[in-house]
């Protein structure tokens, strides 16, 4: 199985031409891609679809990259974000760091570098999720809940981890 085929990537950038070609290339690479043109649109999509990695442009009209990243993480806590920054916005990039961006890449991006970063971000997400899942299940096992309580808790976990 292709290592990239499982990775669901959400792209967010207001530059439509860039997104069009970047999507095509990443699709060709085997990733599952959803392209959105604003933070607002991305949040709408993220309500119904689970993603592993988001690639967010820092400077966008309306909701900027920092805010978008923060809100996406509220909805999908395990999502890893790669932030694309123009060169002059290191300060914002640092602020973005407080929101736990997985990595920043300078625009115009180096394509190979981006592909590498997406793969690494995916791995980090999986590791984090596994560790957290194990912890939660252990907690559940020692919680002394009845069968109905356990079922309910498992449903919540399913939802949280995007298992359908």
């Amino acid at each position, binding site marked *: 199985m292709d290592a990239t085929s499982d990775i669901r990537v959400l792209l967010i950038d207001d530059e439509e031409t860039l997104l069009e070609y970047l999507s095509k290339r990443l699709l*060709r690479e085997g990733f599952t891609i959803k392209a959105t043109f604003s933070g607002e649109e991305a949040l709408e999509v993220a309500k119904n679809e689970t993603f592993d990695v988001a690639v967010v442009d820092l400077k966008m009209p309306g909701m900027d990259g920092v805010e978008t990243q923060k809100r996406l993480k509220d909805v999908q806590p395990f999502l890893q974000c790669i932030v694309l920054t123009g060169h002059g916005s290191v300060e914002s990039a640092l602020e973005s760091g407080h929101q736990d961006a997985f990595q920043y890449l300078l625009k115009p991006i180096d394509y190979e570098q981006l592909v590498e970063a997406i793969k690494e971000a995916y791995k980090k997400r999986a590791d984090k999720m596994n560790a957290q899942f194990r912890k939660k299940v252990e907690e559940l096992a020692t919680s002394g809940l009845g069968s109905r309580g356990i079922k309910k808790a498992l449903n919540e976990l399913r939802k949280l981890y995007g298992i359908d």
Partner: protein
Amino acid sequence: MESIDSLQEELKRVSQALSSHQSELHQTRGYLHCILQSSNDMIFATDIDGILVSFSRGGERVLGYTWEEVAAKLVRDFAGDPDDFERLMAASRERGSAHQGEVPFVHKKGHTVYCDVFLIELTNRGGQNVGTVGVCRDITMWKNLQEDLVKIDKLAEIGKMVSGVAHDINNPLANISEISGWVGTVVSDADELTGEDKEELQIAVRRIAEQTRRCRDITRQILDFVRHVSPARTSVDVHKVLKETVRFLQHEFKASPVEIIFDFCERSLCINSDPKMLQQIFVNLISNAIYAVKEKGADKGFVEVKTSKAGPDIEITIADDGIGISPEEQARIFDLFYTTKPSSKGTGLGLPICRNIVKKVGGDIVFESEAGKGSTFTVRLPLT
């Protein structure tokens, strides 16, 4: 007898009054002398014709002339604009006083000195004009400072503009880079192409990628220049960077009579520095050298790239036998936006950026040049 007594009384009174006036006069004169000796302002007095009759120590400092040198000369002849100064004198005679800021005077050494000038009329008991007193404060330093501030302000403004432009160029660049990447993918997948065509197209796509990367590096350099980013530190093979740079500039000298001569020192030169920044320096210096040789239009010309070790430093010398730089140009070549090239070819950014980068990586840059003969730029960089 009585009248003699009273006369003597009168005489005594008058002489007492006189001596009291005399001592008062003495004190006043001492007071004035003190002011004239110690004030930093230029204080002068003229007679009714504007001929100098008094000139303070401060005046000697402001204009560089001694009292003896200015005595009995017309005050207006020391003004930067004698006619304008004469009008100010006339206004003062008419109204009793006059004031004007930033009046130019010419210093003995020839440079202009700016003063804030206050003129007051001297009158005799009859109320007639007998001359003019001038108090002039030297404001040259203040004025220069103000001009510097305006200059700095302008530069900051230009810096902002340039970084805005660089940002705006980055977006289409990013697009070009993605589009060419996609073309590359499509070409690799296209089975109906012959192997030869495929290779040709793939090379072309790779070239586009290289060139966009070059543009990206330029915009990043500009943004770095405006934003003061600290350089990276890795091991850099200077000879390799120089050769790459020359290869990179090939299209500029390929079909020209310019010959590039390498004169590298025998051992390889590895220093601890920022490779991208070094390349930016060399690109600027070598392409300037190529330009200078081409401009001369001789049948044959050279650009020599030489390296050597100099104690704890290394030296890279870029020499050419091109048009050279005139003394007037030499004074300005590191000024931002100063260029002698036609506007389609020069931005006036190359050398200032060079110098800025060289400073950032802890080195320095010097040059020698003779108009018509050629130029030599030497970059000195620390080994570590």
